[in-house]
């Protein structure tokens, strides 16, 4: 048995270590050139997206291949409201989020009755439909051309003009997002979600309204996705249908599994790794794709539950071991 004080020191380390990692990376980015800032900014945005997706895929154990649809709604929501109708970024951000949440609830209600592969297919279709709409509804979205002239983040007259200021805002939002995820995971609500991932019949037999909790997780994931989409629009100032295409799904899955699906910090850590890795490998020229693939596969072999679960294990009391690969 570990004494309580050691356990609490360890759990404190477990909490603070990832915060330190994220802040260090952001700090380095702030002292670097514009390009690095952009890369890390992307990582933070993906971190927000994946932290949300983790509610549905990690905690609740369901599959969604269509979460890019809600990033698309958020992105276009902010682009149209701010770029076209000259709203302030903040109300546009929240209105887009609310809209995405409502759409997720309406679509999720019937869709989430499906399970496993069927749910995956249905959500995949959702992503495709949204993608098609963003291309075809030219009067609203400007189609393939994309939407430009989106102002940077800001409140009222105060605009975060420089990318570095925006990166600070993104980091703060990411940390808030992870904080929410951590709080929710370790609660009656979060336990109900994780129970569904473990065994739906058992959760049901204990009085958990499985359909309702799945829907809540789906909506939360959509809210995060919408936020990520809006932030992308403001950060880059331009969006097009391709930004929220199928590649986003693949990318976010890689981040989720690499970082540690179902963990609190894993999605964000995964987003950082996957975003930065190609930059570190740039020197390898034509070998970089191969090196990238090798590194990803190795991480998945040696840390099958993700980087965060692996590192988290080092700080955990011995008695908890038993994560058989």
């Amino acid at each position, binding site marked *: 048995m570990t004494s309580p004080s050691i356990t609490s020191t360890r759990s404190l380390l477990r909490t603070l270590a990832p915060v330190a990692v994220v802040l260090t990376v952001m700090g380095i980015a702030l002292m670097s050139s514009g390009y690095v800032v952009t890369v890390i900014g992307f990582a933070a945005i993906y971190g927000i997206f994946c932290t949300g997706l983790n509610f549905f895929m990690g905690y609740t154990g369901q599959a969604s291949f269509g979460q890019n649809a809600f990033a698309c709604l958020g992105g276009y929501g902010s682009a149209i409201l701010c770029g076209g109708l000259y709203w302030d970024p903040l109300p546009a951000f929240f209105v887009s989020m609310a809209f995405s949440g409502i759409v997720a609830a309406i679509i999720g209600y019937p869709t989430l009755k499906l399970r496993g592969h069927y749910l995956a297919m249905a959500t995949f279709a959702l992503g495709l439909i949204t993608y098609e709409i963003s291309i075809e509804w030219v009067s609203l979205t400007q189609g393939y051309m994309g939407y430009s002239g989106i102002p940077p983040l800001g409140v009222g007259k105060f605009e975060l003009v420089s990318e570095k200021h925006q990166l600070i805002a993104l980091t703060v939002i990411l940390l808030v997002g992870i904080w929410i995820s951590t709080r929710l995971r370790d*609660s009656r*609500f979060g336990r109900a979600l994780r129970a569904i991932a473990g*065994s739906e*019949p*058992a959760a*049901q037999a*204990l009085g*958990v309204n499985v359909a309702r909790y799945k829907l809540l997780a789906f909506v939360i994931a959509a809210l995060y996705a919408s936020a990520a989409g809006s932030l992308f629009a403001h950060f880059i100032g331009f969006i097009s249908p391709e930004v929220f295409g199928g590649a986003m799904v693949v990318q976010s899955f890689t981040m989720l599994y690499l970082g540690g699906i179902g963990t609190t910090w894993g999605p964000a850590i995964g987003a950082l790794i996957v975003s930065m890795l190609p930059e570190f490998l740039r020197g390898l020229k034509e070998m970089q794709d191969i090196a990238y693939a090798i590194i990803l596969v190795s991480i998945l072999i040696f840390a099958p539950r993700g980087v965060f679960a692996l590192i988290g294990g080092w700080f955990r009391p011995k008695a908890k071991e038993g994560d058989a690969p």
Partner: protein
Amino acid sequence: MSASPTMNASVAKSLLSVKNVTMKFGGLVANDDISFEVAEGSIHAVIGPNGAGKTTLFNVISGFFPPTSGAVEFDSQPITGLPQHAIAQAGLVRTYQLVQLFKDLTVAENVRVGFHRVTKGGIAAALFRPGWAKAQEADLTRRTAELLNFVGLTAQAEMKAEVLPYGQQRLLEVARALAAEPKLLLLDEPAAGLNVQETDQLAATIEKLSARGVTVLLVEHDMSLVMRVARRISVIDFGRKIAEGTPAEIKTNPDVLAAYLGGTETDA
């Protein structure tokens, strides 16, 4: 300790009434007009040969599927056709024949999920953690420890549930179900796959929880367990109830003996 309940059974109020339940799957009649009552505070067993329709009956009672005809009343309320979680919310909690644990959660976390029915709090409470929510969590920690102690899994509290040996997984499932403070606990073949010692431990646990005031309905194959713990037994064969009575009565019932010791049993 279980000397007098024979008399009690007829006096106590009925907690669960199964009324003329018939369940058909296409042409197959899995349950044919089954009726029985489970008295409050009793340990009631449903027994029968393989394929007699016991698990189907359990699934009907717990709301896994509605019966083709007939009704189930729990605590004087009709529950026929209600979704499973609503039936659980009413206080009828079941376990499964194949252990259904939350494998990625620790033993203690598994039990904490069990408290879902008797606790409150959603997203807002999780996020802002008002005083009552903190007090509730602290209370859960205490009660979880108590329940783990009750089934003898204190030492395993921080282990992942999936690493437990099978017998302990069963006990954990019982502890988790108890966390939900059921009025009626349905145990679906709790002794399946257990060795003699583990079955012993399970029987002791069932007797202890009956002493805590939980009414138990179990479907079971293991006759030694049934004869040891049950106060009342219903026997079903080919989907029909063929006998009901105390263990002593059932042991000598000719129909039951025929069903168990041969005759024309052809089902799987």
